[in-house]
């Protein structure tokens, strides 16, 4: 099953031969993978590494020799954080589950809630064994007999790759943890950690408020290590290389006019390098960029073009890479209009469980839509600011917080647009509605 490799990206590699170079040259994904603007069905021919190919590149995985103490130290030393968007320190999470004393569950979360993200689909479709290696290492460290890979329903290409990988590993007869593949409905919240735990425990796939951390009591009350796909793949690399040879890197999904590209970049790269992959060299620079997806932040392009692709660097500027989505906004397009569309989707994606989200988000979305249509009524801007403050931090999950972040940064970054829309009901960019969305938004399901 070898396809000619169609590569795009900063480190083009012209053939599909297994990588045999030194370990430090290897990342999670040494190819760039292209996807359509929405959905997880890949549109480029990269080569999936089966178990043989994987072990040819990395060598066979070695079980933890010391009960996992070294790996825990190494995870802490390299500062690995969760790549689902929250960037919680992995070592602390693993330690908390391990303290439960066994009988734990490892959940590999591959249900990318952010519709623009495709990095986890890319990794599971092309490097599934790296993820399963990380999950198995985690199972050994925290004392788990079961690994669950959680996916969206309808993510068929991803599911096929994972199931194939599980079969390939089973055929080796190694006594690894049992891997279960489970799916949830493909909506914005089905990758939210408490919703995953609730779904796997037999409930609806909706967020719940957890008075006890998932690490202590998660799936069916068992200590649960739930992390994002990329996080497990990175943990597998740390396990292979040790802390000294590990190369920090980040998977980004960069949005373009006709598709998305998933690439792995290092802190030596900047956001400008990422955007250049999708940006015609002869066109004007973007005016702004959306970082982290619908629940992310808008930033002026000039403020972040030189930002290193590194979560600590982003945090130092008060921003976050979130789950690694980078969506550049062309200079002549209206970021407020984009924001209004996204907010409407987020409001419709609410689980309708918490009052501030159920009532507050539609109110916010309506006011931003009214602002775009303009002119804004008396007191509407004050009401919008009050509602944003009232919604922030008051849901059972982080959906409303993300929506507030999006709206607040839009009002700040697009302040010039806000003034013109609100006073005159006009758009600085002309009505861009006919041009279609820059940031694609699915129908809320």
């Amino acid at each position: 099953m070898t396809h000619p490799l169609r590569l795009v990206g900063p480190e083009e590699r012209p053939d599909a031969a297994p990588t045999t170079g030194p370990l430090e040259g290897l990342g999670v994904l040494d190819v760039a993978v292209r996807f359509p603007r929405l959905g997880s069905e890949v549109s480029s021919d990269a080569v999936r590494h089966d178990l043989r190919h994987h072990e040819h590149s990395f060598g066979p995985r070695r079980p933890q020799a010391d009960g996992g103490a070294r790996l825990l130290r190494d995870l802490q030393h390299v500062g690995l954080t969760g790549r689902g968007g929250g960037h919680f320190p992995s070592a602390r999470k693993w330690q908390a589950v391990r303290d439960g004393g066994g009988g734990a569950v490892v959940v590999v979360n591959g249900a990318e809630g952010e519709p623009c993200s495709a990095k986890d689909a890319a990794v599971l479709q092309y490097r599934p064994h790296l993820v399963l290696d990380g999950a198995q290492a985690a199972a050994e460290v925290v004392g788990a007999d079961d690994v669950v890979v959680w996916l969206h329903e309808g993510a068929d290409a991803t599911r096929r790759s994972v199931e194939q990988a599980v079969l390939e590993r089973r055929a080796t007869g190694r006594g690894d943890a049992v891997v279960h593949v489970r799916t949830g409905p493909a909506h914005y919240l089905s990758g939210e950690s408490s919703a995953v735990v609730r779904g796997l425990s037999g409930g609806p796939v909706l967020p719940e408020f957890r008075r006890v951390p998932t690490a202590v009591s998660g799936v069916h009350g068992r200590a649960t290590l739930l992390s994002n796909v990329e996080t497990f793949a990175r943990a597998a690399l740390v396990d292979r290389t040790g802390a000294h040879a590990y190369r920090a890197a980040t998977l980004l999904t960069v949005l373009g006019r006709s598709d998305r590209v998933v690439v792995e970049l290092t802190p030596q790269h900047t956001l400008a390098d990422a955007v250049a992959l999708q940006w015609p060299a002869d066109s004007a620079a973007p005016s702004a960029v959306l970082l982290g997806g619908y629940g992310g932040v808008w930033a002026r392009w000039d403020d972040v073009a030189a930002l290193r692709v590194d979560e600590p660097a982003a945090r130092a500027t008060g921003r976050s890479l979130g789950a690694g989505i980078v969506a550049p906004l062309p200079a002549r397009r209206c970021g407020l209009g984009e924001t209004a569309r996204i907010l409407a989707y987020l409001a419709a994606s609410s689980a309708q469980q918490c009052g501030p989200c159920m009532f507050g988000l539609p109110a916010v979305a309506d006011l931003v839509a009214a602002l775009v249509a303009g002119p804004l009524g008396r007191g509407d801007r004050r009401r919008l600011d009050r509602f944003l403050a009232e919604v922030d931090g008051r849901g059972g999950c982080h959906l409303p917080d993300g929506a507030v972040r999006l709206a607040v940064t839009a009002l700040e970054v697009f302040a010039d647009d806000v003034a013109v829309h609100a006073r005159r009901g006009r758009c600085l960019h002309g009505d861009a509605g006919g041009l279609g969305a820059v940031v694609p938004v699915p129908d809320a399901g």
Partner: protein
Amino acid sequence: MRSEPRDAAVQLAVDPVACDGIGICSHLAPDVVAMDSWGFPVLSGEGLRGARLGQAERVVAACPRRALFLRRG
């Protein structure tokens, strides 16, 4: 309006998924529970003592949805 824990003492907290916005809490404990624009409780997250702790304990018991609870430390 984020309510961050600000005090190591006892705080009143709400499970927003369980809360239906019935509003008994803000009637019984006006010094501890405020209301947002839609009638859902807003809690300051500050440590409670004396009479205000007494109010908080009363509303924890009175909430028909069992959505309120006390958090220590």
